[in-house]
């Protein structure tokens, strides 16, 4: 029982980057903007979040600046794909490279090459009064840092917005059938751009969370493909916020297990243990991809002047 509680308490923070980035992907994807620069935005968010936190001395400021910088990339993506109708994958890839370059450049300029990297304090946990006193459950769910609670509350809010409000219905229409949304007076271009900005800034926060919880410092390989796993997660979750949570729990569980197995040393070389999350994702995609739903206009630009159907 105690070990299970300990495991769950480790999985929850590990879920946060997946949840935040995947909900960001879903947010922009449901409006029809398929952002493929997640990996780059997470690296950039990690670098910016770390550097700002280090120089200002406040993790909260770091999180907000990371969100703003990533949001700027989302704005570029949104404008280039909706107003100018450039291919979403190609713009996304170009932004991915730009974000990677910018992240390393900023870190190199601000810190340089040192043997002792600067450290920031990791996020403190805020036990929720009363609830955290419940045996086991309190330790598992109610004794974490603020971003853990934020990630879950945000998922709930996103679900409520998308499926329980009129605005959410109009918002989803932009990704499913922009022509009919347009004919009913929804501003498709503006919706897509706003969704792209907000989605990208969530990805930036997800990146900023990594140095603030795991290492206290920034390394170039620290995102380690999470940005790509997040896109897989969005597909597997059928682009619906509620299933994203379950998927994120699976990914985070794999991550914690792989780390545990590596520490415990279970006979197999650790390289194969580290491969496991990626292979498991491939296997799950093999079975789930056919049935997973996705927005009909995902990754396609809407041209209101076009005479072709759709």
């Amino acid at each position: 029982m105690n070990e299970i509680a300990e495991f769950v308490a480790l999985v929850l923070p590990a879920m946060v980057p997946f949840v935040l980035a995947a909900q960001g992907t879903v947010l922009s994807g449901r409006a029809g903007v398929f952002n493929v620069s997640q990996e780059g935005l997470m690296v950039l968010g990690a670098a910016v979040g770390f550097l700002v936190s280090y120089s200002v001395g406040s993790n909260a400021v770091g999180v907000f600046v990371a969100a703003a910088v990533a949001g700027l990339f989302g704005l570029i993506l949104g404008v280039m794909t909706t107003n100018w109708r450039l291919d979403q994958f190609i713009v996304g890839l170009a932004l991915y490279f730009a974000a990677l370059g910018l992240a390393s450049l900023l870190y190199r300029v601000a810190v340089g090459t040192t043997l002792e990297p600067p450290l920031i304090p990791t996020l403190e946990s805020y036990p929720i009064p009363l609830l955290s006193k419940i045996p086991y459950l309190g330790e598992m769910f109610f004794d974490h840092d603020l971003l853990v609670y934020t990630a879950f509350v945000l998922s709930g809010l996103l679900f409520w917005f998308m499926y329980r409000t009129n605005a959410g219905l109009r918002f989803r229409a932009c990704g499913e059938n922009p022509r009919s949304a347009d004919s009913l007076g929804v501003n498709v271009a503006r919706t897509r751009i706003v969704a792209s900005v907000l989605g990208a800034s969530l990805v930036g926060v997800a990146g900023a969370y990594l140095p603030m919880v795991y290492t206290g410092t920034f390394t170039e390989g620290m995102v380690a493909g999470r940005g790509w796993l997040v896109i897989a997660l969005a597909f597997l979750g059928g682009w619906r916020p509620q299933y994203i949570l379950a998927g994120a729990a699976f990914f985070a569980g794999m991550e914690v297990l792989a780390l545990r197995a590596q520490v415990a040393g279970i006979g197999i070389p650790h390289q194969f243990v580290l491969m496991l999350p990626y292979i498991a994702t491939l296997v799950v995609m093999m079975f789930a991809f056919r049935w997973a739903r996705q927005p009909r206009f995902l990754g396609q630009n809407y041209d209101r002047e076009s005479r072709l159907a759709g």
Partner: protein
Amino acid sequence: MSVQTTEPTPSPAPVAAERKASGLLWMTGSYVFSVLAAFVVGAIIIVALGYDPVRAIESILTTSFSTSFGMVETLHKWVPIVLCAYAFAIPLATGKFNIGAEGQLLVGATGGVAMGILLSDLPLIVLLPMVLVAGILAGAVWAGIAAVLMVRFGVNEILSTVLLNFVSFQLIDYVASHVWPDAGAGHPATVPVGDGARLPGIGGPPPIHVGVVLALVVCVAVWLWVRRTPSGFEMRAVGANPRASLVHGLRTSRLAGLGIVVGGGIGGLAGAIEVAGVHGKMLEGMQSNFLILGIIVGLMARGSMAAIPVVAFGIAVLEVGASSMQRTAQVPVELVLIVQALILLFLLLSDVVRRRFERRVR
């Protein structure tokens, strides 16, 4: 309006020629504009960071051409870049994104190094072809996993190729630290391959390895295949209009899978050439940033197989210049990645300008 109707309609041939000429003008103009604009932004960043922009840009542009050593280094960089660009561009001809050139390169290197170590006593004439073929096959099989997942199970090829990259990192780490480890290297690396597995050099000093010639052969072969054979035409048809190709009886998903496998084979060849020509062994991190550079080149060439070697050479010049810029002007080498991404973005923007302009003229 009346003026237009009274004018004799021009015969189609001059119009076509005119359109071709204006297309060529637009193309060169957009490349020149994008490169210049990206360098201007790059210079602004350099100034903002407090370095000397003139010195930095000078060393980026001249390093490759000022010494024979710089030229050889550029050509050696050009080989993996151009091959990774084909690994990306050939599947793109069918509309599929292969983001896995990195993994295909590493697995190809593993295949090549396995031959080079296991059969190290064989003479060059036997061993070297085996190393290269093993690299091609290993890369093709690795990409084949993604192709099968796409054709049989409908898995998005972007995700499967990317995730296979991360698997391949661990795979070569295992090979380099458990199967054929070089204990004295201080860094995960395999023991060196036999002499028969090394690509011979030509000219010099310093000599250029024969891989450069091999890459040129690949360039010609790919161009011939894509532009001059039925299967190449079918691939381009699938990319241009998958629905129409399907209606006309092409096996669209199979052709798309074939594109990924061939791209993977070329990526694998890049790995084998890196082993046989440059390192003489396999080591962690040998993939460098060839994946990103290959994608950048593939996107900049905009679907033209003939443009890829030229664009790749330009990128190789930038890459070699960047490391010398870091030495002479202390500007971090990462700046060049931003400049390259900017060139790409400006190229895309020039397409937008062109589209608007042509709409207005018509």
